[in-house]
């Protein structure tokens, strides 16, 4: 049987039409049978999105489809003119973008945008289209399917928008759906629901699909076939199970290894040392602080933790859980409303103004996105020279010597010093970002999602570097991440934040097996495993049991609305107590022996 999609010798170039053009995709061939799902995997710059977009005859600004052939059914896509392509896009081929939050028009209602493809391609009248949209909203398990279309994008969450974008793609009943990293921007607990909804919706329409991702575990759940890409070329192609279980290409193996970082051995910390950072009963947030020390909009509630010299604490939680706020409080960017932050036995002043230069020096913050944290107009030399001058008064030859040491420390050649930051790769920039913090010779580094914006292979290398630096320099880290795998790889102790409370805190070993706090359980259980069929095995979570109304004004468990183990009359009435589990961690829960 003729395959539904056939791509032969695809070539995409960037730059001019002449010899100066750079080839970004070369010699890519693949076929997809009708109803099949092909995954394109690779790191950023591998050309996976570029290839996916050529299926719609589209090349991003500055790029050009320079050769090859693309056939969809009986249509030669590269032979179509602009109106022909416009008729194809959004009708026969639909696209689900990575960031739904940015890909919806902020000033139009969701419904207008969802039905637009059906209307402009003349598939149905508005009434029919809206009815179909509502039925898709239901199929995608969206809340309030009848009225959600009246909202604007800013009124919805990332997970909801991603599913609404799927509805927009499926409204015309396309024969090919392109999913471009559709769950990368989502929390892991949301991702599992969205994946399930996507898989069901695409399969029930019998559409052929192309799934673009860098995450092998996600791909394992979605794809029949896998195409591994690197620098615009195919490294390995085959049936999903074969590629995942017995990869033949070295690059695929590297990707597999990076996907699940191995735990880094912790250096032996001398026991019973005085803590370097100690936080007791911290409340922080925004707005006015009342007389009990609670801010108007609390972000962090009653946080207590301690980090010993040279130790690493992982802080994990979903977006909005307050993990970045915690780092900002320690760094002095946000004043705590109440509670104490002690550093090396001394009370740390709340605001930046009262802190001494030495206190600044000893606590350094590394931001998630080196692209925005480093001034693109500055050279590496200028970026590293600043803290050297400011904290250590180094100038001239002494400064150059220290800079060379720093670059050596982060495993970059000293010749990089004169380069502008804008010319560096993502991994190099993140290393410079780290070196900027190291230049101060700190005792504690606050790492805020430092590997999240990086490719898995590059991110794994940064984790290795952090572990090495810790051994060599005796640094302590507060390592903030949304990815439990990353945190488990590098941290001695792990704190799980939910809604600004520490629901579980304990040594890394305690997170290897249950029992957990119910939220930790959800978090651990939502991380996809690197094998096909995992998603199907995860039964949809049961709805939380019905409970009476929550007692007004009580300081209840923050996880109560989503908890499947909640107990009526207890969880909705009383503040949860702290329990010590046999595994070694403390949880904030009414269950004396935690679930599972």
């Amino acid at each position, binding site marked *: 049987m003729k395959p539904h999609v056939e791509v032969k010798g695809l070539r995409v170039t960037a730059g001019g039409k002449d010899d100066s053009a750079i080839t970004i995709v070369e010699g890519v061939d693949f076929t997809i049978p009708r109803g099949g799902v092909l995954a394109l995997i690779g790191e950023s710059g591998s050309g996976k999105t570029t290839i996916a977009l050529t299926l719609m005859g589209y090349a991003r600004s500055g790029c050009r489809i320079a050769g090859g052939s693309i056939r969809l059914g009986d249509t030669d896509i590269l032979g179509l003119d602009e109106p022909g392509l416009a008729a194809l*896009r959004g009708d026969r081929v639909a*696209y689900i973008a990575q960031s739904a939050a940015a890909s919806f*028009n*902020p000033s139009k209602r969701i419904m207008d945008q969802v039905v637009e493809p059906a209307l402009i391609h003349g598939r149905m009248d508005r009434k029919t289209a809206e009815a179909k949209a509502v039925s898709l909203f239901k199929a995608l398990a969206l809340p309030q399917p009848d009225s959600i279309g009246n909202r*604007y994008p800013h009124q919805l969450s990332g997970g909801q928008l991603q599913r609404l974008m799927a509805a*927009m793609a499926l409204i015309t009943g396309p024969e090919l759906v392109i999913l471009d990293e559709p769950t990368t921007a989502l929390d892991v607990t949301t991702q599992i629901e969205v994946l399930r909804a996507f898989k069901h919706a695409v399969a029930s329409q019998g559409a052929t699909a192309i799934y673009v991702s860098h995450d092998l575990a996600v791909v394992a759940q979605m794809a029949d076939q896998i195409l591994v890409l690197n620098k615009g070329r195919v490294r390995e192609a085959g049936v999903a199970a074969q590629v995942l279980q017995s990869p033949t290409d070295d690059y695929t193996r590297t990707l597999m290894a990076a996907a699940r970082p191995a735990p880094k051995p912790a250096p032996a910390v001398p026991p019973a040392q005085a803590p370097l950072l100690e936080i007791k009963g911290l409340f922080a947030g925004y707005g006015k602080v009342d007389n009990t020390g609670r801010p108007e909009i609390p972000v962090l509630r009653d946080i207590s933790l301690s980090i010993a010299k040279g130790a690493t604490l992982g802080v994990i939680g979903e977006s909005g859980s307050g993990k970045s706020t915690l780092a900002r409080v320690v760094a002095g960017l946000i004043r705590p409303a109440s509670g104490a932050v002690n550093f090396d036995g001394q009370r740390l002043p709340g605001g930046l103004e009262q802190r001494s230069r030495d206190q600044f020096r000893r606590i350094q913050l590394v931001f998630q996105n080196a692209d925005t944290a480093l001034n693109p107009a500055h050279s590496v030399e200028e970026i590293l020279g600043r803290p050297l001058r400011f904290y250590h008064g180094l100038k001239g030859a002494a400064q150059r010597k220290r800079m060379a040491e720093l670059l050596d420390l982060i495993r970059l050649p000293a010749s990089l010093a004169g380069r502008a930051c804008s010319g560096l790769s993502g991994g190099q920039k993140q290393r410079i970002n780290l070196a900027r913090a190291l230049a101060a010779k700190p005792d504690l580094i606050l790492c805020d999602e430092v590997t999240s914006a990086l490719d898995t292979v590059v991110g794994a290398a940064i984790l290795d570097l952090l572990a090495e630096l810790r051994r060599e320099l005796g640094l302590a880290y507060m390592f903030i991440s949304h990815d439990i795998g990353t945190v488990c790889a590098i941290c001695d102790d792990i704190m799980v934040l939910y809604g600004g409370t520490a629901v579980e805190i304990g040594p890394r070993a305690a997170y290897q097996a249950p029992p957990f706090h119910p939220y930790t359980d959800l978090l651990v259980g939502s991380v996809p495993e690197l094998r096909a069929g995992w998603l199907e095995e995860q039964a949809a979570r049961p709805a939380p049991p019905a409970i009476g109304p929550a007692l007004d004004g009580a300081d209840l468990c923050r996880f109560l609305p989503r908890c499947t183990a909640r107990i009526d009359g207890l969880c909705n009435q009383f503040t949860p107590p702290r329990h010590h589990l046999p595994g070694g961690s403390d949880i904030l829960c009414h269950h004396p022996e935690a679930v599972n």
Partner: protein
Amino acid sequence: MAAPPTSRESGNAFLLILLAKRVASGLLTLFLVSLVVFIISGLLPGDAAQEMLGQSATPEAVAALRQQMGLDQPAAVRFLRWLAGLLGGDPGFSLVANMPVADIIASRLPNSLILAALSTLVAVPLALTIGITSAMRQGGRLDRALNTTTLAMVALPEFLIATIAVLIFAVELRWLPSIALVPAQGGFLDLLRALAMPILSLSIIVVAQMARMTRAAIIAQLGLPYVEMARLKGVSPARLVLVHVLPNAIAPIVNAMALSLSYLLGGAVIVETIFNYPGLASLMVNAVTSRDMPLLQACAMIFCCAYLSLVLIADTVAILANPRLRNR
């Protein structure tokens, strides 16, 4: 900030509060401007009494006239009296022209408003068309041609444009009158014919600024992911710009327009002079030369009022176009 409103009513209430704040700050600005206008006009050398009696008048005669005109009273009293008059619709009495300021302005303001309104009607659609077209053809030949033209239009001094227009249309071709007199009788077409050249001159100046701002605002949007998404839905280029991009670019566009259009009233002085058009701007210049303080102050307040109203309209449009503010 108030607690986040949930229902539509509270959203509207929020909107009303937001707009009320804008109006209140506009009124406050107006008051401060009136103070500044009053103080500055007091700083000009000489006063109306001196001006009326001439250089050869005896100091006693000037002092007597000052007392008669109330010019010897403390500044605060004069300011409050003047402000109360303004609020009551009576901006005072022009001693130079020997008639109420309100009457002088009533004879000139309609002329200015007609010229500004007609210029707006020509300039705004033209600017939008040029801006949108060149944004859609960004980098293309048409875009470059329009860019060069608008740049040249911004660079050319208005008296040059007006003079060249007179030379071509009035002197050489004899199509249009060189003096723009509003015909007492006659229809709309006569009016248009009389005002064609002032409108042309004024439009050329403001179109260029507005078109360039429109182009920049639209191009800023074109690189955003939602535009790519719309393209990948198969949306046509015209629909893309008009339906998807324009609502998101409207706030910077209307703000640029408010700034440009405010020029049509107060900045029209050169055009009014060249075409001998009886408008408000030339009236104000005359008031300065003849030390006619009540008239000068009234004109300044009108221009300021017009400017603030335009900015207020632009703010309102920008707020209404933003669903984050309109629909929280």
